[in-house]
């Protein structure tokens, strides 16, 4: 009880307060408020175009916001310069298209930012990188360039690259959507063990089984707004809104079709 009370008083790692975002006249985030606790795994689901990626990208300011506030560990997100870079270095990001540095080896991909941003010596950075690559199961690929790896291996390398900065939280924007079905699981496995290790994670995904298993909280977005949020068991069993029911039903149909 006592410990629960304490964690409740902790400052959230990520906090959004009535965030709005426009692309021109297009209102893509509508009064979005969200707070992510230390060690929490938040999974964002919702139909295409509902603003999941945009939400994710505003959290490390790859996308600016039109109004509202974003706090990282209680501090407002800086607008630019060294301070912004410093905050970004504490929030990892894993992209749908991996975005590994194509001209460098996997090892260099993982060591580049620690050396450049944290000024860690090459030898130490490489030692750490190899440890992380082992952790995601691709230690033997360290000397190859990204193009020589399968999609699943590239995405695991990208996760290792994010981990190398010892981030406070990691954002995942559809990390398995660009992967062939047989590679999806290897990436989800890495993410599951990350979640178990206590990493704070915000994950946009269409993998419903995975969401149900790892999420502490599900966020359902529709048309730029958070329509529903709750514990996974509750959400998947009894979605409160009609829109969420439709969305989940479309997934069940898809699954049935693929099972046929």
């Amino acid at each position, binding site marked *: 009880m006592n410990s629960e009370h304490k964690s409740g008083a902790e400052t959230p790692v990520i906090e959004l307060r009535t965030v709005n975002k426009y692309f021109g006249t297009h209102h893509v985030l509508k009064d979005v408020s969200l707070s992510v606790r230390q060690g929490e795994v938040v999974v964002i689901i919702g139909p295409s175009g509902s603003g999941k990626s945009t939400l994710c990208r505003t959290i490390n300011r790859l996308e600016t916001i039109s109004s509202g506030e974003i706090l990282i560990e209680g501090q407002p997100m800086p607008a630019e310069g060294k301070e912004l870079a*410093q*905050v970004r270095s504490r929030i990892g990001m894993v992209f749908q298209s991996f975005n590994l*540095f*194509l001209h460098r080896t996997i090892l260099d991909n993982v060591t580049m*930012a620690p050396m450049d*941003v944290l000024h860690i010596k090459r030898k130490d950075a490489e030692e750490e990188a190899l440890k992380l690559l082992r952790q995601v199961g691709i230690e033997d690929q360290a000397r190859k360039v990204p193009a020589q790896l399968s999609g699943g291996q590239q995405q695991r390398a990208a996760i290792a690259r994010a981990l190398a900065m010892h981030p406070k939280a990691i954002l995942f924007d559809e990390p398995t959507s660009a992967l062939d079905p047989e590679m999806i699981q290897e990436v989800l496995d890495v993410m599951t063990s990350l979640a178990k290790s206590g990493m704070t994670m915000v994950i946009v995904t269409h993998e419903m089984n995975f969401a149900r298993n790892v999420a502490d909280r599900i966020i359902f977005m529709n048309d730029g707004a958070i329509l529903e949020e709750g514990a996974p068991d509750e959400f998947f069993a009894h979605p409160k809104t009609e829109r969420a029911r439709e969305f989940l039903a479309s997934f069940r149909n898809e699954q049935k079709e693929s099972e046929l």
Partner: protein
Amino acid sequence: MKNEKNNIRDFLYDEPGPKAKRRIIFWTIVSLVPIAFLLYRMTVRFQENGQLAPQYWSFFLKYTTWRFIGQGLLGTLEAALTAGAIAFVIGFLLMRGRISRSGILRKISAALIEFTRGVPTLLFIYFFFLVVPQTGLKLPSLLRIALPVAISAVGVVAEVFRSGVNAVPKGQTEAALSLGMRNRHVFYKVIFPQAFRYVIPSLISEIVIVVKDTTFAYVINFPDLMQNAKVLISNYDAMLPVYLIVSVIYILINFLINQLARAVR
């Protein structure tokens, strides 16, 4: 080996079948006929007006002739390397200006790029040969050829670099930024190295143009290959042989540049 697709032709066409092979042989012969005919006619003509007489060729047996050509070659290489280096540095800076966040810098750079691309090299040569000295500025002859040649190349170099930078996927920048890297570091460690690789072929074409532009050196009496060739011609009254040999040397230089580029990649 055969299945490896590493030539652009392999992407453009199927593996030729028997019919296609016969057609390729046919067109090869058809295209060789006029070339052979032209060569034959040329030889006959030269024979007739005595261009092939030993007196027009024998000086190529002399060591001094080749030393003189060699000196010209060195002059050409010196001018081309200097011009190339200047063009790369200024071209790079212009590209940085062209993509800078300052609107004024962007406009100035764009104007300079358009200007240097639009004006013929020879006008820049005349400018450095005739106008600049009147300001009292005395440039060494190497710079009097290298600077104008470089200036006429910087606009293209800048645009080539910029096209390379634009070709690097946006995700590369986003990944680097999300790791906390600063803009400048993102550019130099992630974007530009990739951009450079993309544009190596275009840069090679531009270097070849720079080499060819250095032939304007004769205008200012800078001792490059072309200038020395002119001296040989007037000494021995042998235009055809000298131009022939010199052309072959230029072709060889550019061939070597291309080979070098291939080796680098």
